């Protein structure tokens, strides 16, 4: 009774998220390192570094989207809603945060 339903899809999701976070971190670190080396050699590496940092911020969002899709495929609509809610709160934080600072200064 206490065991979660759909044990196998659950394991699949855990493996997928592990791979996403592992390779995502590696990719962002590589991008930032390339940008830093470019910068030290006098080239304009700023854009590449920014892309790496943006990747780190987007990675948790991708993680939530993957979870949302997995819940949807498992027809677990309650959790589809909760995942969507978290994504919506993040979006609102981002928009309000930017608007608010524009008015604040």
């Amino acid at each position, binding site marked *: 009774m206490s*065991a979660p339903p759909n044990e196998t899809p659950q394991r699949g999701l855990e493996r997928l*998220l592990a791979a996403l976070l592992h390779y995502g971190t590696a990719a962002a670190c590589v991008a930032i390192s390339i940008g830093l080396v470019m910068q030290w050699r006098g080239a304009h590496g*700023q854009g590449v570094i920014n892309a790496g*940092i943006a990747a780190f*911020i987007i990675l948790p969002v991708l993680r939530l989207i993957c*979870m949302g899709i997995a819940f949807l495929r498992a027809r677990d609509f309650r959790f589809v809603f909760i995942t969507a809610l*978290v994504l919506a709160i993040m979006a609102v*934080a*981002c928009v*309000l945060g930017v608007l608010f600072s524009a008015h604040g200064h």
Partner: protein
Amino acid sequence: MDLHFEIWLFAVALGTSALGGMLGMASGIFIVPVLTIFGHVDIRAAVGVSLISVIACSCGSAAPFLRSRLTNVRLAVVLEAATTLGALSGVLLFNIVSVTVLYLLFAAVLFVSAQQMLSRRGDPATDVGEARAPSWTDALQLDAAYPDQALGRDVVYRVQRLPLGMLFMYGAGLLSALLGIGSGVLKIPAMDTALRLPIKISSATSNFMISVTAAASAGAYFLRGNIDPLMAGVVAVGSVVGSILGARILMRVSSEKLRILFIVVLLLLGAQMLLSALGISIGGHHS
């Protein structure tokens, strides 16, 4: 920014994350004090840098926990609704709260963390056989099982007092956005006292949640231009490398000595942050 400062930053990130990794603690709590006290970085800029490193460490260390079934993914997303809401509040307060308050808050977090480290955490999980009244949270099916190597079987655990846990998590999200930390300081009471999870599950699940919580505020700060990409980049890469090294050395060092070292460092940094708060309020020059 000159190369010496960048190398210093990299070393700081690497060192604190390696040490943090050895005790299963996020390094975010060290990055802001070290950057402000020794690097003379503005505290708001330091928070932005620290948030990126917190995301990097959380994402970079999540895979092994997920593969060994210690992360409760369902519980994490439920609690993230509270932490991201806290982060949203933090984003709105970030430019209103004075620098002095940020320093004071940080000092308080460092002192409470030292105290938590001093009092050893007992495993709060109760026996599953224990009778419990059914609650509305049962419908969320958050209870799960994890493989325990010592016992050689799966251990079933129950999630309790979810609303209280959510309240703590809201606070954790708020602190995370204001101070650029993973907020272990509030997550430990949330996971132990309220939800009563086994320690392995609570460490893995709270580590998993940190990236989403930190990204909720980092997105706005990044778009506002509050995050210095060079500093954040160096610190993020240093932290990831450091946390990998820390996990490797973990088994070889006496964790008792390390714990005492950590408590001393937390207290020293807390005292210095308190002095910075007073210094700024007396001197009155805000940056």
